[in-house]
Each structure stands twice: as structure tokens, then as C-alpha cells.
């Protein structure tokens, strides 16, 4: 069977499974559409939330980022997992007790204000739309690489599949397809990693292999990797960073942002009880950790594999002859994600750090510049080929990458469509709408959101690449503080909450636009985006944590000089703090 046929079989079988689940899990009421009926087992929900959370970026790009940045990029690992600690203790159980359908629902009720609800809806839509574009393009890339169709065709196919289960099944259909998608993606991620770990360290568990002895050289794997990268002018893989303030703030922004993402929060509305919401957060992190503990191992091992392929006799000896390059380099050259230019005309591939500090050594070795560029995103996708694994593993990776993109896209689309049909239509425009009418509105909003996401995936705007800045920055600076204050303070009132969210949003966007350009239009940035120009060395991507602090300060200051919330609202705060009497998500 050809590789194409195998890939088609794996992707086709996974799609058949998702559509089968969609037919089985049709939503019959708004409660089923928004919160899957509220009866999802906490472990099942943990698995679905893990798939909801782990996007094309986690699956495809994260190992590449870690491989390129080494220790400095550990922020992604800690930031994207530490947020669940905040979610488990500061938000999920209380919002579950509150027992309604959306995140703006809580903000609108707790701050007794349409203005607060609309602000929350606007923030939710900006971050979720930015986020969903990356999922559509990610699915397109996976299709074009593995199924030999254009990436636009891939995006249309992905949109069609999501349409089937999200429009008919709502949260119920999404939940059970996400469980299936989790299983597909975790198997696809782990199998190549296990084989690579065995090949390099004889240890079948990648997370242990990373800290074991490199079989071939007899020294620890990370020591070997450090030796090689040092010889090529790169900084040590495990080297410490000098700007610790920025690393702390970046990690904190990712953590707070993760806890404030609406598509993750609403997953905790689907479990039966408050106690289940707490357990479910723990299970979610267990399922996420299976991938996140493997990713750093994949990163270090793939980087070592790449460098030992290019320098088979060590970095000081002759590099690989281009004519003898392995097949996987040839495959990826065709996609343009690996490129080679023979700068010193010796027919060999030199890969090193082209920095002034290393120039003398490079000249001594007869090198005239770095000749190979490798896109970070191919590490995971090329892993099975690098490790010489059989064709079915490649097919599995294709299905896994697409599963990661689809599961996150569906969760985001539900967050967007429920904010429109429930918060805007049901709660603001037409409160008299019937259950049946709201259900129809929910399905139409979902279909509209899918079309919008497809359009933006086909024509990605400039801001599409700014998921970290826009989605996590805004979630950290607006929704997380508002939700937390709504639960932990009885004194913060509507004026404070709205002023806090708007100030957090505006200040964060201004800081981002200053360095990345107004609305990300190239050339319109007021200051160059380099560490020397950042205030106190804080990168625009790390600013969400500062935005969150500003939000807290403004909200408390404004609330303290205005009237406290009405008694009924203080009682609402009191009631979300105690689990008793939650029952299922209320119909309303």
C-alpha cells in the first residue's frame, strides 16, 4: 500500500468515527447544545478538555519551539499547564455552581450590567476568532502535506467535518468527538517518541529517556546535545536566561491567559457537580501532561537527531554530503520547509549559528554562512521518517495533527456561537425568544462561525499569527481578573469590573501595537520590537500579566469610590462559594 493510501485510510477512518459520534450524539435542547446536558463524567470531560485545549500549535509547533529555544522556551510548558491550577481553585468549581451556559453569562449577572456582558462577549470573540484561524490553517497544512490536496481544499474538508458534528450535536457532539480526537492525537504523538527514545537512550519512556545516557556516546543525552550545539556556535540547550523578569511575566501571562480562555472554562459546565469540576481539572491536566511531558523529550531528541544526521562524524569533522542526504530531507525540501543553499560550494550541508562571535571559527573551518534552514513545525511531523518508522506511523501522525486542530476549532466555535445566540440574542436582543427559537439561533450562529473561520483560514489576516499576544494577552488582561473578582470579592461592582476590563484591554493592546504595529500592519510599529526597546525588558507577549494587574487595581479603585453591589448580587456571590444546591445547569 502506498504512503498516500495509508494516510487516506487513517484520516478517513478517524473522520468516519467523528461523524458516527455526531449522529449518535445529536443535541435535542439548548442545555444539550451548550453544556452537553450537564451530565458528563469528570474523567471523560478531562479527556475532552485536554483535546479542546491542545491545538495544532501544541501538537505540531511546540516541540519545534522547545528544540529551537531550549531552556528559555520552558515558559510554554509551565505556562500552558500551570493555568489549570488557577482554573481548578479560582474559577471552575464556582462557575459550575453558578450553573449557567456561557462565560459572559456570569459576568453579565454578577456585575448586573448589559455593558459588562457585552464587553465580555467582545473580548471573547476577539480572542476566539484569532485562535480559530490558526486551527483552520493548521488543518490545511496537515492535509496538504499528507493527502496531496491543496491547503484550501484541506480547510474546506475540515470545515465540513466540524460542521456535521458541531451544528447538529453542539457541545454534546463536540464532547464525545473530542474524546475520540484525544485518543487519536495522544497515540500519534507518543508512538514515534517512544521509538526515538529507544533508539537514542534505550529507555522506552521519552520523559525519562531525555534525562538518561545517550547510548552511542555513553554520556547523558543533554550533555551530548550541549557539546554539539556549543561546537556550532549556538548557546547551550540548557543555558539559563539573563532576562528573568520577562521569563516570569511571560510564564504568568500564559498561565492567567489559559485560565481565562472561555472555550476551556465552558467545558467545566458540563460535569454534574462542583466536586466533579475539581476532579475534572486534575484529570484534564493528567491527559495534557501525557503530551506536555513527552514534548520536551521529542524536542531535545529531534534536535540531537538532526545535528548528528548533518554531522555524522561530529561537528568539527566534514558535514553531510548533500547528495547523500536522507529521504526525509528530500520530502520536506519539496514543501519549502527545509531549504539548502551551498554558500561555500563544497557540496556539503553546514548548519550552524551565523553570529559574529562564531565568525572566526566558521571561517577557520571554511564555512561561508549557515546553509540549511529548518522550519520548527516539521519536527513532530517528520519524526517518524527521521526515526525510520513504518508507514502506518506517518498515517497516524496525519490523523493526529488533524484531530488536534479540529478538536480545538470545535471548542472555540462553540464558545463563539453560544456567546452570540445565548448572550447577545437571548439575553440582550430578544429575551422573549422560545427554547426552540434559541436552539435554531444557536445552530445558525454555529454555521455562521464556521463559515467565518473558513473564510479567515483561507485568507489569514495579519493578526492570525499573534495567537499568543492576542488570545492569551486579552484573556489574562480582561476575563480572568473579572471572573476572579466576581467570585472572591463582594465589593467589586459593575463600574469597577467594566473599567477594569476596558483598561486592561486597551493598555495591553496599546503595548502590543507599539511593538508589533497598529492592528499588526507591518511598518506601523512605533518602536522596534527588540529587547532594548521594551519597557523594563518586558516583551509584548509577556504583557498580559501586567494588563491583569492593571485590571485588578482599576477595578478595586473604581469600586471603592462607587456604591457597593446590591444585596441580591452579594447573595449570588455567597451562593457560588458553597457547592450545596447547584444541581444541574439550570434551564432559563
Amino acid at each position, binding site marked *: 500500500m502506498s504512503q498516500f493510501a495509508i494516510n487516506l485510510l487513517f484520516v478517513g477512518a478517524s473522520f468516519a468515527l467523528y461523524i458516527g459520534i455526531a449522529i449518535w450524539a445529536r443535541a435535542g435542547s439548548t442545555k444539550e447544545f451548550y453544556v452537553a446536558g450537564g451530565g458528563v463524567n469528570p474523567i471523560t470531560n478531562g479527556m475532552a478538555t485536554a483535546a479542546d485545549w491542545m491545538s495544532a500549535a501544541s501538537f505540531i509547533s511546540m516541540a519545534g519551539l*522547545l528544540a529551537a529555544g531550549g*531552556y528559555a522556551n*520552558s515558559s510554554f*510548558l*509551565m505556562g500552558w*499547564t*500551570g493555568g*489549570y*491550577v488557577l482554573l*481548578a*481553585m*479560582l474559577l471552575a*468549581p464556582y462557575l459550575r455552581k453558578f450553573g449557567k451556559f456561557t462565560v459572559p453569562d456570569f459576568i453579565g449577572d454578577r456585575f448586573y450590567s448589559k455593558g459588562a456582558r457585552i464587553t465580555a462577549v467582545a473580548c471573547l470573540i476577539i480572542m476566539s476568532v484569532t485562535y480559530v484561524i490558526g486551527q483552520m490553517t493548521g488543518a490545511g497544512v496537515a492535509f496538504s502535506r499528507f493527502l496531496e490536496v491543496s491547503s484550501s481544499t484541506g480547510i474546506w474538508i475540515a470545515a465540513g467535518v466540524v460542521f456535521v458534528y458541531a451544528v447538529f450535536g453542539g457541545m454534546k457532539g463536540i464532547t464525545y468527538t473530542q474524546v475520540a480526537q484525544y485518543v487519536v492525537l495522544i497515540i500519534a504523538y507518543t508512538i514515534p517518541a517512544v521509538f526515538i527514545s529507544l533508539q537514542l537512550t534505550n529507555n522506552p519512556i521519552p*520523559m525519562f529517556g*531525555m*534525562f*538518561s545516557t545517550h547510548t552511542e556516546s555513553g*554520556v*547523558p*543525552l*543533554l*550533555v551530548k546535545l*550541549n557539546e554539539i550545539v556549543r561546537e556550532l556556535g549556538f548557546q547551550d540547550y*540548557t543555558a*539559563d536566561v539573563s532576562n*528573568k523578569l520577562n*521569563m*516570569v511575566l511571560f*510564564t*504568568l501571562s500564559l498561565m492567567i491567559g489559559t485560565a481565562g480562555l472561555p472555550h476551556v472554562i465552558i467545558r467545566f459546565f458540563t460535569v454534574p*457537580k*462542583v*466536586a466533579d469540576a*475539581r*476532579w475534572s*481539572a*486534575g484529570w484534564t*491536566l*493528567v491527559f495534557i*501532561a501525557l503530551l*506536555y*511531558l513527552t514534548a*520536551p523529550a521529542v524536542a531535545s531528541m529531534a534536535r540531537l537527531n538532526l545535528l548528528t544526521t548533518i554531522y555524522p562524524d561530529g561537528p568539527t569533522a566534514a558535514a553531510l554530503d548533500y547528495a547523500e542526504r536522507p529521504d526525509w530531507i528530500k520530502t520536506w525540501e519539496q514543501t519549502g520547509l527545509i531549504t539548502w543553499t551551498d554558500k561555500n560550494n563544497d557540496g556539503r550541508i553546514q548548519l550552524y549559528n551565523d553570529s559574529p562571535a562564531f565568525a572566526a571559527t566558521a571561517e577557520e573551518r571554511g564555512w561561508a554562512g549557515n546553509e540549511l534552514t529548518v522550519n520548527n513545525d516539521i519536527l513532530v511531523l517528520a519524526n517518524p521518517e527521521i526515526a525510520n518508522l513504518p508507514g502506518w506511523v506517518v498515517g497516524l501522525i496525519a490523523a493526529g495533527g488533524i484531530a488536534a486542530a479540529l478538536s480545538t476549532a470545535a471548542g472555540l466555535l462553540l464558545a463563539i456561537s453560544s456567546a452570540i445566540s445565548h448572550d447577545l440574542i437571548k439575553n440582550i436582543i430578544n429575551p422573549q425568544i422560545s427554547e426552540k427559537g434559541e436552539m435554531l439561533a444557536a445552530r445558525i450562529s454555529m454555521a455562521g462561525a464556521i463559515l467565518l473561520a473558513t473564510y479567515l483560514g483561507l485568507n489569514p489576516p495579519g493578526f492570525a499569527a499573534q495567537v499568543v499576544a492576542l488570545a492569551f494577552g486579552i484573556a489574562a488582561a480582561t476575563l480572568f481578573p473579572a471572573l476572579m473578582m466576581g467570585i472572591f470579592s463582594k465589593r467589586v461592582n459593575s463600574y469597577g469590573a467594566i473599567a477594569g476590563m476596558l483598561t486592561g484591554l486597551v493598555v495591553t493592546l496599546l503595548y502590543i501595537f507599539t511593538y508589533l504595529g497598529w492592528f499588526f500592519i507591518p511598518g506601523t510599529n512605533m518602536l522596534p520590537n527588540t529587547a532594548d526597546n521594551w519597557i523594563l525588558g518586558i516583551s509584548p507577549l509577556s504583557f498580559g500579566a501586567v494588563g491583569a494587574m492593571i485590571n485588578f487595581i482599576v477595578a478595586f479603585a473604581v469600586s471603592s469610590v462607587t456604591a457597593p453591589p446590591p444585596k441580591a448580587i452579594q447573595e449570588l456571590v*455567597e451562593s457560588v*462559594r*458553597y*457547592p*450545596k*444546591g*447547584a*444541581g444541574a445547569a439550570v434551564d432559563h
Partner: protein
Amino acid sequence: MADHNMNAAAYWSANLRYITISLIVWALVSYGFAILLRPMLAGIEVGGTDLGFWFAQQGSIITFIAIIFIYAWKMNKLDKEFGVEE
């Protein structure tokens, strides 16, 4: 009613105490061991590198899981003690 309110206040302050302790551990392993205190832990070797690197790439994640499960277990027990469970 007064008794009920006192109970409620005690339940909430116990919850806040658990949260505070958990957040101290959460910050210690990530911002502490993995970032700010890493140079101080440089002497402790783990698999060819230092303890801070291990915390940054694996240790903090494992600790986060432990924090959530311990918190969930303690809180679910607290719910029953105060009779506020569902």
C-alpha cells in the same frame, strides 16, 4: 441562622487557606525552582543537567497535577464536614 453564617465563614476561610498554600507551592516550583532560584540549585545534578532545568521542563508540571488532586480531595472532604456538599 447566625450559626449557619459562622459555619459558612469558617468553610470559606478554610478554602482560602488551602488556596493560599497551594499557590505558594505552585509559585515555588515554577517561578522559584525553575526560574529565579535556578542558579542556587545549579549544584544538584539531574540526568546531565541541573535540578532547575528539570523543574522547568517536567517537575513543575508533575507538581501542578499533585496540587490539583490534593486540593480537590481536601475540598471535597471539607464540603462534607460542613455539610455543603451536593
